[in-house]
């Protein structure tokens, strides 16, 4: 035995210092390399070099990195606490809108109607003054605070009700879907003051940096990578702590956890809010890189897709979720370009294949193989947050 006894829980800081879960260091290493290599390559290498990363790819990867952070946030609640949110896109979009509102205010009088205070779409709707909820968004720190607060608060209120009422399983999934669907419809309304179907667009600059400039793109790309790395560390910190094990306990046997004296609803609420904040940050980084935020980000289909990224990569493995986000989105980019008429077959087929043949996702399945391989050679050792033996429902 008994590395558990030799290595009892010394608290989350110690856990984080002494070792990340399987593959974590390599993962962080890759992020670090990318953070250095991509900007250097884009800036200094000639276009003809095989290692040159074109600006087009920088934006694309920046977008993927934001999706990866979103996937990570879903994995934190689904993989570890068993909360399947089919509405996480809502938090992503809210973070995005908060950032979009800042970027809108930055346009100032450079809009087509030249109104120094009101964004174009408000001028257009005959609004004469800025609605109260747009106040303060011209101040960057305030906007960033909102990026965290708005999704966090929504998650807190929603979670407070749902978890206290012990809404679980499919019921929870469906009401998260109802939440994002209701928000989708609400944001579609032009009267809401968020630009309706077109959303917020036509951004000019961020903190004085021109959004079209390659330098800004590189900066955003690196910022996204840093956010992803930090997000990953936060997730590791949580999942490696005792709290992480309580979450897994909740996932596997909720009543047992309750009868062991844990207020399950608070734990769920905590992790749900953390996850929503991560999703919000991802959204905020996403918006300046794609240049638009509109209600379609709230669509239930988008949220379901995020869950699929996690499932493809491997639930409960953290960096597996990141991998899943990269793979699926890269697949989407590639196939929509190369097989515009058939790409849905590939994508749909991938999902079916994954569930049938890689039920634990790519990383989970790889881990099982390695485990088997190791077992042949030596004794066994437990894994971090293994995929649950049985489903929670």
């Amino acid at each position: 035995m008994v590395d558990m006894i030799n290595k009892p829980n010394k608290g989350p800081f110690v856990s984080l210092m002494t070792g990340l879960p399987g593959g974590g260091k390599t993962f962080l290493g890759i992020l670090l390399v990318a953070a250095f290599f991509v900007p250097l390559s884009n800036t200094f290498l000639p276009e003809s070099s095989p290692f040159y990363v074109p600006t087009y790819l920088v934006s694309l990867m920046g977008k993927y990195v934001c999706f990866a952070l979103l996937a990570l946030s879903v994995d934190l609640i689904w993989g570890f606490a068993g909360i399947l949110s089919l509405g996480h896109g809502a938090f992503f979009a809210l973070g995005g809108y908060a950032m979009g509102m800042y970027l809108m205010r930055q346009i100032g009088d450079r809009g087509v109607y030249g109104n120094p205070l009101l964004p174009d779409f408000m001028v257009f709707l005959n609004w004469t003054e800025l609605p109260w909820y747009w106040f303060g968004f011209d101040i960057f720190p305030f906007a960033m605070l909102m990026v965290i607060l708005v999704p966090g608060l929504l998650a807190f209120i929603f979670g407070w009700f749902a978890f206290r009422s012990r809404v679980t399983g499919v019921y929870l999934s469906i009401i998260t879907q109802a939440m994002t669907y209701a928000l989708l419809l609400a944001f579609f309304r032009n009267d809401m003051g968020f630009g309706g179907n077109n959303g917020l667009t036509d951004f000019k600059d961020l903190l004085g940096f021109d959004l079209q400039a390659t330098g800004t793109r590189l900066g955003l790309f690196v910022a996204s990578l840093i956010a992803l790395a930090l997000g990953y560390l936060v997730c590791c910190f949580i999942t490696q702590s005792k709290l992480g094990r309580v979450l897994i306990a909740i996932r596997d046997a909720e009543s047992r956890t309750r009868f062991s004296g844990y207020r399950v609803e608070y734990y769920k609420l905590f992790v749900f809010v953390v996850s929503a904040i991560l999703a919000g940050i991802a959204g905020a980084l996403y918006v300046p890189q794609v240049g638009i935020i509109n209600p379609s980000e709230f669509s239930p289909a988008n949220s379901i897709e995020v869950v699929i990224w996690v499932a493809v990569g491997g639930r409960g493995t953290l960096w597996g979720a990141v991998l899943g986000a990269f793979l699926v989105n890269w697949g989407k980019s590639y196939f929509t370009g190369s097989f515009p008429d058939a790409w849905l077959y590939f994508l749909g087929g991938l999902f079916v294949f994954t569930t049938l043949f890689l039920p634990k996702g790519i990383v989970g399945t790889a881990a099982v193989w390695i485990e088997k391989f190791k077992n042949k050679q030596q004794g066994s050792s437990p894994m971090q947050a293994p995929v649950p033996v049985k489903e929670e429902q």
Partner: protein
Amino acid sequence: MLGLSKVAGVITGAAMLATSALGLGTAQAADDVIKVGVLHSLSGTMAISETTLKDAVLMMVDDLNKNGGLLGKKVEAVVVDPASDWPLFAEKARELIEVDKVDVVFGCWTSVSRKSVLPVFEELNSMLFYPVQYEGEESSRNVFYTGAAPNQQAIPAVEYLMSEEGGSVERWVLAGTDYVYPRTTNKILEAFLKSKGVAEEDIMINYTPFGHSDWQTIVSDIKKFGSEGKKTAVVSTINGDANVPFYKELGNQGIDAADIPVVAFSVGEEELAGLDTAPLVGHLAAWNYFMSIETEENDAFIKQWKAFIGDDNRVTNDPMEATYIGFKMWTQAVEQAGTTDVDAVRQAMYGQEVKNLTGGTAVMNTNHHLSKPVLIGEIQDDGQIETVWRTDDVVVGDAWSDYIPESAKLIADWTYPYVCGGCEKPMY
């Protein structure tokens, strides 16, 4: 632990390499072809409308190649699927321009998709042809708008209905999907109607979400609104999908075109193809093109289209004509400029003339909008729209509406001395 981290490294590395390969694999553009990007959704909600336009571009390209190509080069269409996903539109636009190195792009349908790709085209100084009727209030240096602006569709239609021939309508329902095109159109119409002395209480405005399918209440409301003793008409800016259930409900609730005519700006032959139009005979549509128009050009175009698509029942519609005109103009401008260079072609575009399929000549103005005739037609029981009224002359597309105070003062003119898409005084 070691094993897992190796897997992590290998897989993630492979993913990154593969991602790079996406960029690098197709980056070379051959010199002997001219590439045309096609950026229309082939899946998702907009596929219903946009796929047709993709096919239209492919047909034009095919035709061009059969006739010896352009500038002695072969023309190649690069088709991508932005999947009705607006940010994906921006990504795909960038891919087309930066990776595939296309010389021009034909694409977009919804306003939001156009807004999404606009910064990309401006940043990379490429050229987009946008073939759909839209809300105006925009003129980009990098976009040519070949669909109708509000003054080429909405205003003439309302004027027609106000006329004796159109039924002397006094009361108006402005029903639309809640997005920018109907909002703008209705705003312009409201201002226009009020300027014609229509009272506030004689205008009812109603917005519904995308894909709205239960029209019972709204159609009942329209009926009630129309029973107040004044001749009433509905001006519909309801978008795509929602039209079929709307018209089905209209037909079933027995709203007769003779009592309450509905004039639509987003309903063409293609939308009607999904409907039994017998109960809808007499309702109106305003466009710059109807398939039923008998001209030599149109007959040839319809014949070519049916042959290309291999289906005798397929219809043609206004955005297809807009695509046709845009494509023709671009090829003419390229030939005139002798190059596909964006700046040179843009200069050559101004004043470029193409014969409309409906007769007369379309001209590209310096505000990047076309001069086209406006037609008003009535829906027939065979799904066709028959012209009942047309402007005597072509109407110049207005980028900025005269009926909106903020935009009435703006001028779009991309030639000297203005050189701007929306300013009050010349730049130079």
